[in-house]
């Protein structure tokens, strides 16, 4: 049996450790909203993904982009140009060269299983949660933009000017890189991403969100039933975002 003095010392040490872990935990929780690899909200058994049905996407609708901008607080620029402005999600209209058929679809971070942005980031700020969501840790991003050079989808933006009107769920920072977080702050609370919700509300339901690892999820069933493609499939990155009717 240990003596009383030792217990007391241990208790003091324990209490110190508790304070440290509380501080750490709150820091981690804070970062988790902005996006670090705190696994508390991220379930390694899941892989979140999107299935975008280009057949249902209306070329004249921009609601997903607007919703993302409103939800995450990007899109107001004082001095920027379209080239310098942040763009987490964008709408593209494409014409198939061989047939002339046109399609429209949103493009955002494709949340690759093997993300080049994570590979190239010198500090590890560009990272992937266990549930597959690819994020930038705003605390360790040094603003080198190498991830932007590496991203095959042009999904990332560098914040070129001081940010205002930040949202609690999506902390941002001048001089750092950011991209679609798959609305991680909503997903961790059991909600769907803002773009998906907006598309539903617009009556298109062109974006389906769900767990790619769950064979019973609507997204997995849809992927099983109908052909779909991944952008730049040749690179072998296995994106979490897939497209139908492209």
């Amino acid at each position, binding site marked *: 049996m240990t003596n009383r003095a030792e217990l007391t010392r241990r208790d003091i040490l324990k209490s110190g450790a508790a304070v440290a872990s509380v501080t750490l935990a709150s820091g981690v929780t804070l970062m988790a909203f902005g996006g670090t690899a705190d696994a508390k909200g991220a379930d390694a058994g899941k892989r979140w993904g999107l299935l975008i049905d280009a057949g249902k996407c209306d*070329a004249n609708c921009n609601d997903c982009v607007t919703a993302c901008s409103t939800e995450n607080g990007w899109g107001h*620029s004082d*001095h*920027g*140009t*379209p*080239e*310098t*402005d*942040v*763009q987490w999600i*964008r*709408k*593209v*209209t*494409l*014409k*198939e*060269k*061989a047939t002339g058929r*046109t*399609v429209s679809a949103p*493009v955002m971070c494709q949340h690759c299983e093997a993300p*080049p942005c*994570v*590979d*190239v*980031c*010198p*500090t*590890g700020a560009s990272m992937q949660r266990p549930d597959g969501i690819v994020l930038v840790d705003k605390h*360790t*991003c*040094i*603003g*080198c*933009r*190498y991830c*932007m*050079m*590496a*991203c*095959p*989808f*042009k999904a*990332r*933006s*560098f*914040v*070129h*000017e*001081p940010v205002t009107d930040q949202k609690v769920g999506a902390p941002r*920072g001048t*001089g*750092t*890189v950011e991209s679609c977080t798959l609305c991680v702050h909503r997903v961790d609370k059991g909600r769907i991403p803002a773009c998906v919700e907006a598309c539903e509300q617009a009556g298109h339901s062109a974006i389906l969100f769900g767990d790619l690892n769950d064979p019973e999820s609507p997204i997995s069933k849809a992927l099983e039933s109908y052909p779909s493609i991944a*952008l*730049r499939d*040749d*690179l072998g990155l296995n994106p979490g975002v897939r497209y139908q009717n492209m």
Partner: protein
Amino acid sequence: MDRTIYREIKATPALWQLGGLMIAFILAALWSVWTVEHHGHVITGMNNQIVWGLPHVFAIFLIVAASGALNVASIASVFGQKAYKPMARFSSLLAITLLVGGLAVVVLDLGRPDRLIVAMTTYNFSSIFAWNVLLYNGFIVIVGGYLVLQMMRKVDARWVKAAGVIAFVWRLALTTGTGSIFGWLVARPGYDAAIMAPLFIAMSFAFGLAVFLLVLMALFRLSDRMIGDAILIRLGRLLGIFAAAVLYFTAVQHLTNLYATEHGGVEWFILKDGGIFTALFWIVQVMIGGLAPMALVFLNPSRSSTMLASTLVVIGGIAQVYVIVIGGQAYPLDIFPGFEVVEGFNEGVVNTYTPSFYEILLGLGGVAIALFAAGLGAKVLRVLPTNLSDANVPGDS
């Protein structure tokens, strides 16, 4: 011949003036950095399409030239060419200062330069960028140690050689790392090529020797010291060989890409339809920076040919790095193969870039840091021989 004597260069008025000019450039660069940090990168010419701009062109040129500036020391220590030995100390010093100048530009252009400590303490080892941080820091330490060994009295020549070998192997690794920053970018058709590593090594040999020759000749003129024609002609010929090596790797790079249909787009962009990039490639990089220096040093070997060839290699080198860095980003990513983009966010279009005044100042500031530090080093350290006239240059063994 006399014994080689190393002496600090004299503080002539011309040297002070040049030093003052360099400090003015450094201050201007710091002002530029402060302004960009205050307003954000929105005031630069860089954007979310061209994410690396003129600062990176300067930085990469300086970093590549840094490892090449060590050529002369390597040839003396590793390959035993005695004629190069009197210049070996300065070659080592310049290698360090060029690297410091280049790194200063990279760091000061970061979105968050205040987080340099993060980059120095947090490593993602799957990133070639992180490895480069280690390679660059290691280079400064190793070449610094090599320089100290060269300058110490009564040091066994074997130690100097050993340090020289380590520095030589390290500089090859360093340039491989720098080339791989681009070579390993799988998504961009303008990069994604293993040949980037050897191409960058060839570039470093040429750019580094050219910068070394120009700085050496300038410091000798400023300090009224003699440098012989024979050694300059010999170094000029070496520069011509290095310029040929750059052209060779460049030709292989483009021919290989041309053969692959999927890379045809970016190749024709650089070689034929790219406007400024095509002009920079053919006129500045290939003709002015490659063929002209070769013609000068091989057809008309002379002191002035070496000097002019060095200048042309530097000009061509900056153009080459510009074409690689900016040209590679200007060509659009092929995100939707088989489709033409009707409407999008700068999709499928050639991205334009105009460097801002701030970027020019920052880039020149990096050059000024490298030159000021090299001059200061020559002023306070015994790194430059008092006499490099032909009669005083040791013959080869």
